[in-house]
């Protein structure tokens, strides 16, 4: 007996900094996460297909850093439960 799966539409806030922000063309946005996006890496791959500006911003995901709810995470981090996910280049403060 299988229950019908309800579609889980989860809204999350994305924030972009530095040249990621410049390439995407906006500082932040709210998106509805589609099913099947489990990790930060999955999310970057999905974003890259959303249009030329995203494809440009995420053309080399290896050099992009991410934070979930204001803490650094690796690309294999799960995004379940995230409210705010940020993407940015390696930091150059100090």
């Amino acid at each position, binding site marked *: 007996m299988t229950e019908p799966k309800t579609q889980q539409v989860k809204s999350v806030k994305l*924030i972009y*900094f*530095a*040249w990621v922000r410049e390439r995407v063309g906006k500082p932040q946005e709210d998106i509805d996460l589609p099913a099947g996006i489990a990790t930060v890496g999955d999310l970057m791959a999905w974003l890259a297909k959303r249009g030329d500006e995203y494809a440009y911003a995420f053309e080399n995901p290896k050099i992009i850093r991410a*934070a979930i709810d*204001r*803490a*650094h995470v690796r690309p294999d981090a799960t995004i379940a439960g995230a409210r705010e996910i*940020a993407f*940015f*280049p*390696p*930091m*150059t*403060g*100090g």
Partner: protein
Amino acid sequence: MPATIRLQREPFDAAAETAVLTGGRTDIGAVVAFTGICRGAEDGAPIAALTLEHYPGMAEAEIARHVEEAQSRWALLGVTVIHRYGRITPGEPIVLVLAASSHRHDAFAAAEFLMDYLKARAPFWKQVEAAGSRSWVEAKQSDDSATERWQDAKPRRDAAE
């Protein structure tokens, strides 16, 4: 242990911050103050200014986490971290780290640890303004290496005082 963490557009006054940290106390024997200054050239080419972008909320949280880490590693009597954002011209200060302790080694180690972490982990990004064009500063591999050296280091509290 008092810790002051501030992000601001305005320049800071290192002497006034040091006075706040040490004023009226006689337990502090050593204060290390690190000031990072905007240089007039980047990779040999003159620059007009730096513009620092940051991630509000996360920047403060990251710095606070590393201040706590420093406090757990060394016997500190006070820490101040001030990091500026916005447009900064050559010769202006960018960042201040103060570490106070009874003895010099703890103050030196904590200040250097905090600067290494600020460089590699605090969410700030520098944009260079030069000859009318703008470009983002690339992160240096050496800054990641500088951070890694603290990861296996045993706490220096055990070292010579």
